[in-house]
C-alpha cells in the first residue's frame, strides 16, 4: 500500500522523463540538427526569400522553420487577456460571497461557480468558436473572427472558478478575531475589508491568481478552437494567435515519429511542463504557508 501511495510522485517523474526523452534528440541528434537546433528556435534566422532575419514558425514547408517566439508571444497574449478579465471578476466575486453575501445568495452562487468549473473546456471552446466569436465580431468589427481577445475571454471562463475557489477560501481563513478587532475600533465594513481582511488574505489571493495563471497558460482545447491558430508576432490582441499548447494539439497527429517536428513539439511540452510547474509550485507553497500562519492545518 505504501508503494501505491507514491503513485502521484511516480506520475510526475514519469511524465517528465517520458516527454524529456522524446525531446532529448533536439540536443544530441546530428540528423535533427540538420533541420533544427535550440539556437534556430530562439534566434531570428535568415530564411531564403526573406529580406531580414525573422522568427518564423512554419514546420511543414520546403524549408521547415521552428521559431518558438511567435508561439510564446501568442500564449502570453491570450493568457494576459484571460487574466485581465478573470482576476477582477473572480476576486470581486470572492470578496462579495465571503464578505457581503447573505446565506441565500451564497447558496446559489457557490454551487453555480462550482458548476462553471465543471464545464469541459471543449464546451467553452465550442461556445467561443460558434457563438462568442460572432457576437464579438459584430461588436468590435475584428479583422479576423478568431483572435486573442475571443480566445482570452473564453479562457477566462475556465480560469474564474480556479481563482474564485482558492481566493474565497483564503478570505474565509482570515481569523474572526481580526475582523472583530477592526469593528471594535470603529471601522466600517468596507474599511475592515480593504484594510484588514484583504491584506491578511493577500498571499492567498496572490496564490489564487498564480494557480489561475498556470491553468490559463496550459489550457489547450479553448485556444485551439478559438484563437485562429496563426503564428504571428504582434502586439495587437485583435490578431489571430497560435499558442504553445494549441500548436502541439494541432500538429502532433501529422508528424513523423521521432522526426525533427515531433521532437520540437515534445520540447514545447517540456517548456509548458516547467513553466506551469514553477507557477503552481509557488502558488501552492504560498497557500500552505498562509494556512499554517493562520492556524489552519494544511
Amino acid at each position, binding site marked *: *500500500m505504501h508503494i*501505491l*501511495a*507514491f*503513485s*502521484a510522485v511516480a*506520475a*510526475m517523474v*514519469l*511524465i517528465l522523463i*517520458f*516527454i524529456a*526523452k*522524446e525531446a532529448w534528440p533536439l540536443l544530441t541528434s546530428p540528423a535533427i540538427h540538420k533541420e533544427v537546433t535550440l539556437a534556430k528556435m530562439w534566434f531570428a534566422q535568415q530564411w531564403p526569400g526573406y529580406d531580414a532575419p525573422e522568427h518564423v514558425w512554419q514546420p511543414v514547408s520546403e524549408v521547415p522553420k521552428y521559431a518558438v517566439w511567435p508561439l510564446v508571444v501568442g500564449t502570453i497574449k491570450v493568457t494576459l487577456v484571460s487574466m485581465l478579465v478573470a482576476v*477582477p*471578476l*473572480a476576486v*470581486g*466575486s470572492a470578496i*462579495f460571497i465571503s464578505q*457581503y453575501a447573505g446565506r441565500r445568495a451564497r447558496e446559489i452562487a457557490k454551487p453555480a*461557480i462550482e458548476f*462553471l468549473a*465543471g*464545464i*469541459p*473546456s*471543449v*464546451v467553452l*471552446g*465550442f*461556445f467561443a*468558436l*460558434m457563438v462568442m466569436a460572432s457576437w464579438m465580431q459584430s461588436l468590435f468589427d475584428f479583422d479576423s473572427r478568431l483572435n486573442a481577445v475571443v480566445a482570452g475571454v473564453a479562457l477566462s471562463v475556465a480560469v*474564474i472558478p480556479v481563482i474564485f475557489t482558492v481566493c474565497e477560501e483564503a478570505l474565509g481563513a482570515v481569523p474572526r478575531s481580526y475582523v472583530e478587532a477592526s469593528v471594535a475600533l470603529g*471601522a*466600517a*465594513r*468596507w*474599511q475592515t*475589508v*480593504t484594510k484588514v481582511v484583504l491584506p491578511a488574505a493577500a498571499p492567498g489571493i496572490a496564490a489564487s491568481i498564480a494557480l489561475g495563471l498556470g491553468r490559463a*497558460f*496550459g489550457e*489547450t*482545447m479553448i485556444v*485551439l*478552437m478559438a484563437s485562429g491558430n496563426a503564428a504571428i508576432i504582434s502586439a495587437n490582441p485583435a490578431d489571430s494567435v497560435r499558442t504553445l*499548447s494549441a500548436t*502541439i*494539439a494541432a500538429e*502532433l*497527429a501529422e508528424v513523423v515519429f521521432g522526426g525533427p517536428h515531433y521532437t520540437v*513539439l*515534445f520540447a514545447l*511540452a517540456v517548456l509548458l*511542463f516547467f513553466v506551469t510547474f514553477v507557477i*503552481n*509550485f509557488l502558488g*501552492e507553497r504560498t497557500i500552505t504557508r498562509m494556512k499554517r500562519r493562520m492556524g489552519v492545518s494544511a
Partner: protein
Amino acid sequence: MQASRRPRTGDAVLWFATGLATLLVLTILLILLVDVIKHGAPRLTLGFLTKAPAEGMTAGGIFPAIVGTVALVILMTLAALPAGVATAIYLHEYADPMAIGTRVVRIAVNNLAGVPSIVFGLFGLGFFVQFAGGGIDKLFFGGAKVYGQPALIWAALTLAILTLPVVIVATEEALSTVPRDVRLASAALGATKFQTVVRVVLPQAVPGILTGAILAVSRGAGEVAPILFTGAAYFLPTLPHSLNDQFMQLGYHVYVLATQSPDVDATRPLLYSTVLVLLALTFALNASAIVVRSRMRKRMAGNQA
C-alpha cells in the same frame, strides 16, 4: 457628518463593485446554458442518443460516442480509485506530516493537478502507447502492432493519472471527517493500525471517496486534449469491443464537429445537441457529488453533537 458619511459611500461602492462581478460571472453561466439548451434541445430525441452518426456526421446520433465515453471513464476509475485512495490513506493515516517523503508526495499531488492536459496527452503517447504498448508487442506479439497504438486502455490510463489528484483530495477530506474517538476506540479494543484503517475508518469515509470518484468521472468525461493522441477516433463504424480498440468520445466528437465539419450549417444542430448531452452528463455528476458530500457533512455534524 463627513466622517459618518464616508464609510457608507465606501461600503456602497465595494458592495456594488463586487456584487456586479458576482452577477457577471453568474450571467456568463446563464447565457451559456440558455444558448446550449435553446439550440440543443429540439434535436435531442431518443433516436439521437441510440443511433450512430450517418451521412458524414450531418445526420444520425451519438450512440458510439456515448458508449466510448462510458467505457473510457469506467476503465479510468478502476485505475485511479485504488491508487488515489491508497495515496490519501498514506498521507492522512500513516505519514508524518513533517517528513520529507510526505512533503514530496504532497508537492507531487498539488503539481500533478496543474500539469497542462495536453502534456498528459504527450505523456500518454510516449509512455503508454509507445513504451508500454510497444513493449507488450515486442514481448508477446513478435513486434506486430497490437497494443503499441492508440487504444481505449491507454487513453483510460492517461486520464486516470490526470484525475488522480481529484480522488486523493476528496478521499483525504473524507478521512479527516472521521472522528479521532472512533480510531482510539478501535485501538483500545486491540485492533492494529491496519485493522482500524480498513474496518473502521474506511467504511465511514466511503461517501467522501464516492464524491471523489464522481468528480473524477465528471472531469475525465470532459477532457479531450489527453485522448487526442492516445485513442480517440474521428469516426468508427463499430463499437469498441476490446481494450486495444480505438473509440469515439463525446468531447472529441464536439471538437471534430465544431472544427472539421465540411458543412457547418448541417452539423450545427447535431453539435448543439451533443454539447447539451455532455453538459447534462457533467452537471448530473457534479450535482450528485454535491449531494453526497453535503449528506456526509450533515452526518458528521450529527455525530459530533
